């Protein structure tokens, strides 16, 4: 469950954002739609605790992120928030499996290898477990990103423009995959995008 109230952020006096209140329950999905330059990524980073808001409250599972100290916020984010970035970043020196393991270790969780293998199989990239990220196709990378975001069974799954680089068919596949994973693990799924194709897939939509 994630909730925000009266959220505001300012890069400087010219670039100020005020965001509508957001609510998304466990296992549900919420689409945040908006054109470029409206602060979509900023909102996502605020919700993930990567940025500190200038005003307002963000609550995940009853914990107010704005009240956490830096170190607590790092730990909380690692354990409770799964993020899928617009571009798929990995630790290049580690295999996919090791990347997932690292995400678990940094969150202070011990995740069994069986869980990781199962997750990768679920996403159809089980055979890529031992492969370095550079040797994966873009589609496989995105699936691996989803796997990494899910590995700690987060309360919130945040995705930044997950479909922008995909054709219609792959777009629907990825969204189905995200929705499926989120509802399976009872995570709140938030997607920020400008991609109008996603509108029909979500009943809850917030327009920026």
């Amino acid at each position: 469950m994630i909730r925000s109230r009266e959220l505001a952020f300012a890069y400087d006096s010219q670039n100020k954002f005020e965001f509508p209140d957001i609510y998304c329950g466990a296992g549900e999905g919420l689409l945040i739609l908006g054109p470029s330059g409206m602060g979509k990524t900023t909102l996502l980073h605020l919700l993930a605790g990567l940025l500190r808001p200038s005003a307002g409250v963000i609550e995940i599972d009853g914990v107010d992120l704005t009240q956490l100290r830096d170190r607590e916020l790092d730990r909380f984010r690692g354990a409770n928030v799964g993020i899928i970035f617009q571009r798929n970043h990995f630790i290049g020196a580690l295999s996919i499996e090791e990347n997932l393991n690292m995400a678990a270790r940094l969150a202070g969780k011990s995740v069994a290898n069986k869980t990781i293998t199962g997750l990768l199989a679920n996403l159809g990239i089980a055979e890529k477990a031992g492969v370095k990220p550079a040797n994966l196709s873009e589609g496989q990378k995105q699936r691996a990103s989803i796997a990494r975001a899910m590995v700690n069974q987060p309360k919130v799954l945040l995705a930044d423009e997950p479909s922008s680089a995909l054709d219609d068919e792959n777009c629907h596949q990825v969204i189905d995959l995200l929705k499926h994973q989120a509802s399976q693990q009872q995570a709140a799924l938030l997607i920020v995008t400008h991609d109008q194709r996603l509108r029909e897939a979500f009943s809850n939509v917030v327009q920026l």
Partner: protein
Amino acid sequence: MFGLSLKNILHKPLSSILSVLLLAMAVAVFSILLLLQRELSQQFNRNISGIDMVIGAKGSPLQLILSSIYQVDYPTGNINLADVQKWIKSPLVKQTIPLAYGDAYESYRIVGTELAYLDHFQADMAQGVKWDHKMEMVAGSKVAAALGLQIGDQVVSQHGLHEEGEAHSDQPYTVVGILKRNGSVLDQLLLTSVESVWQIHEHEDHGSSAHKHEHNHDHQHEHTHNHDDHHAHNHHHDHEVDREITALLVSFRNPMGMMSIPRRINKESVMQAALPSIEVSRLLGLMDSAIRLLKYLAVLLMVVSALSVFISLLNSLKDRKTELALLRTMGASPAKVFSMVLIESLLLTLIGFFLGWAFSRMAFWMVSMVVEGRFHYSFSSVLLLKEELFVLLLCILLGAAAALIPAIRAYRINISKTLSNA
């Protein structure tokens, strides 16, 4: 974090290989210098102990010391035993040991001397006995091992200190004893009595008349005979024989001897007296300043390699900025990414140190092989010198210093901005 640091290095080894090699070279140079310095001063001081003065033919005093004490350079020439005896009748003289060179076997020197020479180095017998009669020989441990000498073997010496010398095949030596290895020059020598060396050359020079000499122990007679002969032979022969020696090692009862006797010999005789302590400290002093200069150079090289580590870290960090931000989003604290960069740098410098250390041991081993082959001198090997711990510490400090700025950058990384721009 340690595992990730190591994997980061291994992932792109080319970017750091230059800095590691640079550091390895610097460490190797430094270590070799340390080993060399230690080895030289040890070898020099071990063999010098108890010898206060060396009397020999005129020439370079350093050459006299090197040839008579360290058995490396060629002798300066021969001196007449009767002449030298006039100078050492002083009560200040505690002990004298004559050395007579001239022959070699398979390029190992044969030294005619007295049993006191063995006692001087506290030599123990590994097998057999010390020489008692003419033409009996005791072999140093390394010579015996290298040539496979056994008790009872006959050894035919060759004239001169080279292998090419003409053989004295009619008068072989008999090996009666083999010494235990004791780290002194004895290990590299074949030892016999002075009389044996004299006999070989008497025999050679006078052909059948040698028998006459052997039966004739009248000093006076022998001396005149020798004198007559001298003029006839000294043009085609390096060293005239009969009661000539190459050098006399002298130890004094008290330091007063060192003050007066050498000066008088050098002034009033045709011989020279050299003081090992002075010559060796002169030689070591010369080498020390050269070695010190090279050490500075090696330290400079280390600093340059640290700079190279710094640059390669900074470069790789630029490429990996998003990875660091990613680590932060996954819950890594700033301190964690800071330590990851630091560990990477320390790993690089430690790899460099150990590579350099291994390289120095290999190079030193090869040098000692060459030296042993050329001069019959061998070096001992040491696993880790005390000074090398200092080098290790220096490497760690340089590694930490090189990582400081990149690590601080990693610590302060702006996650949101880095990931939005990537």
